[in-house]
């Protein structure tokens, strides 16, 4: 049998924490993060470590809000998926463990790369990514209230084959030093120009999103206009409820952006389409109501 069983099966934190020697070994191997690579199923599994580092960085520590970044470094050849993985894969899922009253906002991802394997299109990151999140402190929180923030990342990473797992990283705000903040900001500077930008209507506009229905497959046709319209090379859609996007058939032609979707059922409603327009590798976020 070939060495295909590379699964790092996800295990609960509780399961791992109950095994102190294992935790000690993991911490020694990775001082910046408490990684939970899961149970090895075969000897080969221990050699496969697609995520080289998972660390939680505090980017800003304000009285009412903490801005954090989950920094993930990947081993060569491996990739991690975007919030919309595309035709295959799994989006990373971040679960936060926070003190009472703290609230985590939506994660923000850098603009991903597009991977095309035949008819299968996926979106993700090679090398490294930094998932940003704003964590709101309760209004009653005192400046002295310094808490432990833990992020548990559920992930699927793929190279030729795929591995799933869970990795946890934590940061104690009470031990946060100026050097920590400095380091975090230097990591952020590597990614800062990769986050989606807002569309500037002076340069680019998306309008007249028209829905054309045919049995089982619907087409959304949008018109692009403005100085940068001709520079738009692609569209990376955000996930849609009740619809499956045919990523392979996304097309931009003559100022028209065409997206084909399959509805969950004929009465499914598609009120809005949103995602990133790609210009020169940068993502520009937009959202547009759809007219039938």
């Amino acid at each position, binding site marked *: *049998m*070939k*060495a*295909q*069983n*590379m*699964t*790092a*099966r*996800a295990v609960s934190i509780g399961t791992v924490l109950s095994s102190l020697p294992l935790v000690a070994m993991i911490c020694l191997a990775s001082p910046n993060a408490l990684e939970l690579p899961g149970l090895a199923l075969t000897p080969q599994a221990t050699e496969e470590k697609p995520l080289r580092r998972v660390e939680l960085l505090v980017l800003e520590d304000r009285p009412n809000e903490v801005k954090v970044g989950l920094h993930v470094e990947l081993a060569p050849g491996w990739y991690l998926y975007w919030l919309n*993985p595309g*035709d*295959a*894969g*799994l*989006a990373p*899922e971040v679960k936060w463990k926070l003190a009472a009253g703290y609230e985590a906002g939506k994660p923000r991802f850098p603009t991903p790369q597009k991977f095309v*394997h*035949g*008819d*299968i299109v*996926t979106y993700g990151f090679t090398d490294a990514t930094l998932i940003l999140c704003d964590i709101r402190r309760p209004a009653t929180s005192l400046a002295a209230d310094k808490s432990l923030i833990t992020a548990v990342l*559920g992930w*699927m990473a*793929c190279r*030729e*084959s*795929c*591995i*799933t797992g869970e990795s946890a990283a934590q940061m104690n705000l009470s031990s946060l030093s100026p050097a920590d903040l400095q380091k975090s900001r230097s990591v952020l500077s590597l990614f800062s120009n990769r986050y989606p930008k807002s569309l500037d209507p002076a340069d680019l506009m998306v309008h007249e999103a028209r829905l054309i229905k045919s*049995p*089982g*497959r619907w087409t959304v046709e949008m018109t692009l206009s403005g100085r940068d319209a001709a520079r738009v090379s692609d569209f990376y859609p955000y*996930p849609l409820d009740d*619809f*499956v996007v045919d990523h392979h058939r996304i097309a931009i032609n003559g100022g028209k952006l065409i997206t084909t979707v*399959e*509805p*969950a*059922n004929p009465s499914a409603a598609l009120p809005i389409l949103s995602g990133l327009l790609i210009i020169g590798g940068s993502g520009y976020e937009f959202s547009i109501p759809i007219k039938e």
Partner: protein
Amino acid sequence: MFNRPKGTLLFFWLAILAFLPAILAAQEQTPAIGGLAPDFELNSIDGKPHKLSDFRGKIVVLEWTNPGCPVVQRHYRDGLMPPLQKESTGKGIVWLTINSTNPKHQNYQTPEALKIVYGDWKAAFTALLMDPDGKAGKAFGAKTTPHMFVIDKAGKLAYNGAVDDDPQGSKEVRINYVRLAVDSLIKGEPIATATTKPYGCSVKYAE
């Protein structure tokens, strides 16, 4: 006089050329819900040929699989797929599990090895079929493992998508789309959710 037929012929070929991309695109198009499912004939891991159209008159579930994919492993090891297979075949449904992994991929396993793996997992499919050149997978537009298709008694595609609504495998209560689709077909009712986004590893087709 002689120029007119030549001109007509030229016009004909120009028209063919103009519509060629659309013709090719239509040929590439995988079946939509309500469309006729493409036929295939594949050998099972026992070496027996199975032709999809031979099952006309029965409801058929197609399950794309790859035992090297952690999502497939979860569905078998956590006891999600085998009971669904058993329940479905118990209702008279034909359940064909299809492996489109290309023989050069590290996840490829021989029929003999697959027998052991799926035997250990207590799989209860009707047959496990080998699709090493990926033709059946591409004809259906199978993208992930697992990726599920349900075909009605008339041979038309009735469901295309995920097994359930739990990509991360973290939900206590899941909606099993395949069970709902099969039960609706048995009752003669419309399928409430006929298309969902499949999740899992990409099918390891030959490049």
